[in-house]
């Protein structure tokens, strides 16, 4: 099941998706069996995240609004990263900047040997004060990816969105400017209301929808890009079983990222791996 992309070897096609497996310092027995782990998004400054509630269950889905809670790059490097040096798999750090400069600072800070690569977070829907996601603008995607590429020789993943844009356009922009792989589809925009209080349920008002509810759309996006573009794709969106993984691979993904499934069961990656091996 080994997958080789560029200079990296993945022992299997399973990744633990950003946002769903903490910072990589828990459940090491699961992480080490996977092809890789992508940490929660790291920003330059510490972020407290959005008010609670941050999670709400929908039919076959999960709506979340965590808001990139993280300790900031300095604390991450001093307190978390040293714990991750013995990971026996590919470690990717998800970096979330609010400007091109911030992305390049994060990339420079993380140009360290313990890390296999970076995932450029262009598509987190839970950030206030941003009317649009960077990944909704191909020119911005090009600019950020090119700027980060100049600062690091690490494996670069561009995490794109399928919210209100054809991701084929942004995938092309990412590849043309040095991304080694693209990741799709992250979460979809969502909101839920409490009909008794007549107010939005999530503390962050809007959130990102994930889980099996979005799987067919995620598969479509990956298949759609695969028809036109020869780029390594990390597919994700509602993977809960080995059959789901196979579907994503059939649609054209080289790797898959387990996201919401980790919340349902932190050992899901191991279970899926076992099923795939059988």
């Amino acid at each position, binding site marked *: 099941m080994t997958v080789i992309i560029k200079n990296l070897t993945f022992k299997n096609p399973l990744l633990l998706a950003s946002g769903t497996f903490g910072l990589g310092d*828990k459940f090491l027995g699961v992480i080490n069996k996977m092809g890789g782990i992508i940490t*929660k998004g790291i920003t330059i400054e510490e972020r407290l*995240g959005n008010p609670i509630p941050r*999670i709400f269950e929908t039919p076959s889905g*999960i709506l*979340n609004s965590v808001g990139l809670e993280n300790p900031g790059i300095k604390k991450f490097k001093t307190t978390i990263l040293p714990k991750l040096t013995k990971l026996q798999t590919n470690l990717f750090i998800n970096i979330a900047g609010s400007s091109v400069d911030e992305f390049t600072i994060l990339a420079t800070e993380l140009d360290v040997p313990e890390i296999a690569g970076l995932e450029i977070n262009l598509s987190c829907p839970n950030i206030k004060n941003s009317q649009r996601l960077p990944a909704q603008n191909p020119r911005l995607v090009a600019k950020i990816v090119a700027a980060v590429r100049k600062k690091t020789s690490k494996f670069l993943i561009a995490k794109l969105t399928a919210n209100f844009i054809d991701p084929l356009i942004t995938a092309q922009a990412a590849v043309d400017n040095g991304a080694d792989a693209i990741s799709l589809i992250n979460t979809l925009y969502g909101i839920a209301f409490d009909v008794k209080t007549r107010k939005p349920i999530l503390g962050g008002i809007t959130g990102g929808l994930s889980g099996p509810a979005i799987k067919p759309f995620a598969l479509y996006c990956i298949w759609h890009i695969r028809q036109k573009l020869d780029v390594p794709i990390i597919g994700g969106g509602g993977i809960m079983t080995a059959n789901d993984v196979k579907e994503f691979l059939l649609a054209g993904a080289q790797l898959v990222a387990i996201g919401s499934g980790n919340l*349902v*069961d*932190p050992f899901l990656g191991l279970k899926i791996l076992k099923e795939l091996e059988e």
Partner: protein
Amino acid sequence: MIITEKAQIIFNNSLSEEIYSMKLNSPHVAKQAKPGQFVMIRITNDYSFILPRPFAIADCTKNMIRIVYRVVGKGTKVLSTRKPGEILNVLGPLGKPIPKLKNKKVVLCAGGVGIAPLRFLASKLAKNNEIFLYYGAKTKKELILVNELKPLCRKMVLATEDGSYGKKGVILDFLSPDFLRNQKINYIFASGPLPMLKNLELKLQILPEIPVYGFLEAKMGCGCGLCYCCGVKTREGKYLRICTDGPVFSLKKVDLSSLNK
């Protein structure tokens, strides 16, 4: 060590109209669980209820754990229909255990189904400590587990809001600071609705020397520190995670208003 296991339902009995007691054969969790900890249980094995739900451990004996829960939404409604012999996925034990206490005077203060985690705590504290239980509910029917708790407590004060059993009123009306001071109470553990915890914290501001701990609840994703969805703000304004930093917190350190909603 946190594990996931398939647990068979031994019983799932109603204690009152909306409150159920469920016993599960969950040997790995039972072997390790300590008071203060909880489990995440999946309601069904399909995706109709995708997120597991957190439940306090109310009792723990060899191979078995028991949860006591109120039907509050669609998920717990379906859980209440699950039958003995059926299998549920259980993840646990989760959360930080309460440290062992010895030769202490401890007040347990419960509101409604909040009695569940205190039942487990009382069973462990009873050997080496004196327990004073203050327990209130809306009606007599909702005063549950009383017979189990009676032998564990030196003193038990019961109250109902409608006066159908015990004293009439909310339980905090009967927890007097003078009593706590005179008895030289060492610790207070409280579990119940958020307004009760808030009022308790306010009431006991005049006794800063007594540590007061509350069992907190929040909408959870994973229950084990991976998703960062269940937060409570500290008084300094930073979030702690209820699943891994708690679920039991010093009420003097957290800002309970951050849990409003």
